[in-house]
């Protein structure tokens, strides 16, 4: 399945958002996720089914002004 993760294209076999994150080595309690412009809460990642072409954003804390 084709997924866009943080602006990059990936071809992955991942049923859920949690699967995709594990396969792409995104791990850590400091990550926050959105799919197609909607926040997906941490506790919902395992149940969030992905579909072809989904746009996934995985963000983490950063310095800011």
């Amino acid at each position: 399945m084709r997924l866009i993760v943080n602006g990059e294209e990936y071809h992955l076999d991942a049923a859920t958002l949690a699967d995709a994150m594990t396969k792409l080595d995104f791990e850590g309690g400091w990550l926050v996720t959105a799919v197609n412009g909607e926040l997906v809460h941490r506790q919902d990642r395992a149940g969030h089914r992905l579909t072809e072409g989904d746009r996934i954003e995985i963000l983490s804390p950063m310095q800011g002004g």
Partner: protein
Amino acid sequence: MISLYGSEIGSRLLLGTARYPSPAVLEQSVRRSGTEIVTVSLRRETAGGKAGGAFFEMIKSLGVRVLPNTAGCHSASEAVLTARMARELFDTDWIKLEVIGHHDTLQPDVFALVEAARILCADGFKVFPYTTDDLVVAERLLEAGCQVLMPWCAPIGSAIGPVNIMALKAMRAHFPDVPLIVDAGIGRPSHAAMVMELGYDAVLLNTAVAGAGDPAAMAEAFAKAIDAGRGAWLAGLLEPRDLAVPSTPVIGKAVFS
């Protein structure tokens, strides 16, 4: 003490965490500034990346409140989603709302700002809007539910200092009970003192500290200037006048001829 959305804050200096030469210098600067609130942001993580986690741990160890921002957002929808992601990530309903409208000046898009503020306030956020010194926009932000206003005094990172004192004064006069924080444009401690002397409640700094030769020492210098400006405002400043006024009383002066 300054009351921001019901939280009593001792320091009137809010400090950004970006552009320091190293995490250690950032940490020293936060400590020497005496700040109780630091701004942070969110960015895309790289696969296998650990940088965000390390930064987060360091910030948590400082024991200060975090005020996440929506820096870099150019539309209301982008800012709203970023705010919601920040709420989950940093576990706070505080958000410094920035919606940039102009590439060169980083001037806020005040129309999108008001729209985003309305959505976020209705969603339970405590919004700290980065805005201009426009009174009408300020009114709209308050109507949207904001209880704090953060006008710029010059473009972000410019270090120019207050360019429109009249507008800042008008804002203070029109909103005597709203916490007003000057966000953006401050370059020197004297600029910070100047806006505090106008009755502003606090100052948010980043580049002026992070870009200094010795950021931690500058953080402390700013803290002192902010205290001095606040003290002057409370003490009641003498207004300038056109003519000289003798400081030594003339009554009872000896007449020699």
